């Protein structure tokens, strides 16, 4: 909680100073690849990121971002056991975990520097609300006869997250973004599972749709 308050204070601090950003409203759509940096066996996603800078004035750096991360399967092998003497006492199963992430964030886009008039670097600073849904399944699990020890289970949690991005506007219209997000800033449920909340590090490439140029 203290961390969030510090972050909000920092946002307000940035708001209070004059910041030079692009003098146009825009909507940016980008996609790429994402790797979770909070789990030892990381989750991978295809992120789809929508950014909207609603205010055209250069002095107003307010930015809204919506991210949806389409998961790849995270595979691992687990053991299942049986006391039935007519069956092998232990078998290996493939465990698949998929993590679906949906985040809505708001924050600031800060101008960093430019190479020329059309190639500029920005820094985004966002506070978001994220839903993380984990789906677990075991392939060919004979659950009538076998039991997985400490089985992973589905989970569905929501909470605040913080994120930052470094954005390179390439030839004015294109965007390359490196985006890092924290895990959910809440406690986990009491039943222990093998995975932690995801913290995606995204590399995306997208296009900026400009409109409403300021004078």
């Amino acid at each position, binding site marked *: 909680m203290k961390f969030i308050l510090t972050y909000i204070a920092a946002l307000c601090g940035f708001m209070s100073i004059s910041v030079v950003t692009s003098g146009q409203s825009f909507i940016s759509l980008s996609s790429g690849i994402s790797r979770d940096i909070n789990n030892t066996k990381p989750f991978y996603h295809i992120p789809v990121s929508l950014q909207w800078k609603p205010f055209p004035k250069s002095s107003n750096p307010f930015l809204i971002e919506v991210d949806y991360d389409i998961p790849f399967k995270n595979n691992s092998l687990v053991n299942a*056991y049986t*006391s*039935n*003497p007519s069956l092998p006492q232990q078998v290996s199963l493939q465990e698949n975990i998929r993590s679906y992430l949906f985040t809505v964030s708001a924050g600031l886009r800060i101008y960093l520097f430019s190479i020329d008039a059309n190639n500029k670097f920005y820094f985004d600073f966002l506070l978001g609300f994220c839903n993380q849904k984990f789906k677990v399944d075991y392939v060919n699990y004979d*659950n009538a006869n076998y039991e997985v*020890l*400490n*089985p992973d289970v589905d989970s569905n949690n929501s909470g605040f997250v913080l994120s930052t991005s470094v954005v390179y506007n390439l030839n004015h219209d294109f965007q390359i973004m490196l985006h890092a997000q924290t895990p959910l800033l809440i406690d986990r449920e009491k*039943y222990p599972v093998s995975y932690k909340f995801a913290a995606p590090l995204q590399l995306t490439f997208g296009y900026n749709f400009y409109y409403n140029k300021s004078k």
Partner: protein
Amino acid sequence: MKRITYFFATVLLLLCTAGCAKRNFFPDTDDPGLSRFTSNGYNIATVYINGDAFINPFLGAYRGNSLPSLSRITTSGTVDSLTLSWSIVLNNDAALPFNGVYQNISLMIPVDKSFTQNDFLSWNGKRLAANSNSIYLNSFNSSATGILAGLSNIYFVQINIDNSKTSSKVYQISGLFDGNIGDSILITKGRFDFSIPASSLNF
């Protein structure tokens, strides 16, 4: 006077929150009424007896789950018996602390007279020979009263020494079992996750 009341209220609240034991029942969605098969020292055991889910009872926030007993019973024969037993109740959210046809379940395993805790630790990951063990159900009911005996299969999937919770040695035991008492009582899908202090053992 007001301050004293606040003080006692705070102390009472602290005592209540500090002393609360947890049920630690995490339902297995594949087997309604049974707990997941865990190895977290939750002191929970569930089993189907003729299709009804039984569980060790919860004795309240102060005492937590009813604990098992693990002991070696010396016999006059060539082998002794290692007995793991615990109380059971129907897992049907009934308000009564003890209910159902059966009140206690015991797994009895023949062991050498020289059986030690190290021998017990060596059972980690061991499925005991089929039908070499006994299973007993205590029943006090109009239809079946007394101790009912049958055969069981037991698999000690994990036996660890857990020193993380207390400074003294604690065995963390997780296993599976099934059995039958004649043709009339079928015991299926049993699983337990117990935390037993070494100091409570008599071997």
